[in-house]
């Protein structure tokens, strides 16, 4: 799992590459927590490089999103690939997370 971050209009965009599962999820959580502790609570996760999300991985990711939300922030998704989208649908994540077609639209949603 590779994670890169960049800023755009006061929003932090995280680009993730690889699989989100029990083994990689702690790294993502740690990364998100690091952002939140620096006051970066408006997050966009670019999922275009995410090819697999496991059940335990999603659970851990949701934990990080909940912490962000408790600080008044949010994590919004973009670039979700079809196979991953199926799992996000089945797991109810599309019901509780905002998703956008482009990173720009996701960033703009915060203003």
């Amino acid at each position, binding site marked *: 799992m590779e994670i890169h971050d960049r800023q755009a209009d006061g929003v932090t965009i995280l680009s993730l590459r690889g699989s989100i599962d029990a083994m990689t999820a702690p790294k993502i959580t740690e990364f998100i927590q690091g952002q939140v502790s620096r006051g970066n609570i408006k997050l966009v996760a670019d999922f275009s490089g995410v090819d697999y999300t496991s059940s335990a991985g999603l659970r851990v990711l*949701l934990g990080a*999103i*909940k*912490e962000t*939300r*408790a*600080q*008044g922030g*949010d994590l919004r998704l973009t670039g979700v690939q079809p196979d991953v989208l199926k799992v996000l649908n089945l797991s*109810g994540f599309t*019901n*509780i*997370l*905002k998703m956008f077609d482009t990173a720009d639209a996701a960033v703009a949603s915060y203003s």
Partner: protein
Amino acid sequence: MVTKRDKPRIALVIGSGSVKCAAAIGLKKVLEREHIDVDMVVGCSGGAIYASLIALGWSVERATESTLRMWTREVTAKRSTRGILQLTLPWVFKFDESFGLIDDRLINRRLHDGYGNAIFADTLIPLFVTATDFYSGEQVVLSEGRIEDAVRASISIPYIFPPQKLNGRFLIDGYQSDPLPIGVAIKEGADIIIAMGFESPYQEHVTSLMRYNFQIASMTSNNLLKTNYAFHNLAHHSEIIPIIPEFKHRIKLFDTDKLPYVIEEGEHAAEQQLPFIKSLLGK
């Protein structure tokens, strides 16, 4: 856990439950008395009517009065000639998905009179109304355009009212996908979610095929309510406060004469959760 923001965002979610949804007026009464401001309202099916009245800032009296005017037995009294012909002679009068047994012109007119071209942008607090896409089965969240159209879509009771065509989608009753759409409030950034929901009553005796069908519909709807609630409860970062009014008498679809009783039970159920809501708000 309350958020670290100074002021948590409060959402009101009102689930499906036909006339029982008027209990939301009782809930609103209690919140007003305690000066608890709501930041967004979400409604499904019958709940969409009350969610929209609350969002428009109507007084308790006006909301009650408008329910009595809008929801009378006449709205389902006139059978749809086309619907009946479609049902009896499907090969002559082409049966299609626009089917509904009841002529919906009266309910449409009543909704129009009630909302008078009000649009979502006119509401004092953000409003979200849920319906279900008839082709894909997915929940559809409406937050733009005329409120009467969204409410009409959300109350498209299967078999009774024809589905509502809106923005190229064919929409039916919101309860088919989620009878208590808490997910919308989570997605829209609410912290404290006050969720008023209603279980469908079970048949005491199954004595006909129709009653059997009702029993199965209640069962699936209640199971959907419970499992969605269970999911949202784990998925949310803050508190969800369920308010489930209990009714000693069975409230039927057009029991508007029981409206004062329904509102009272809503008030009563809200009072029970009030101490906890106040403690969350530091009041």
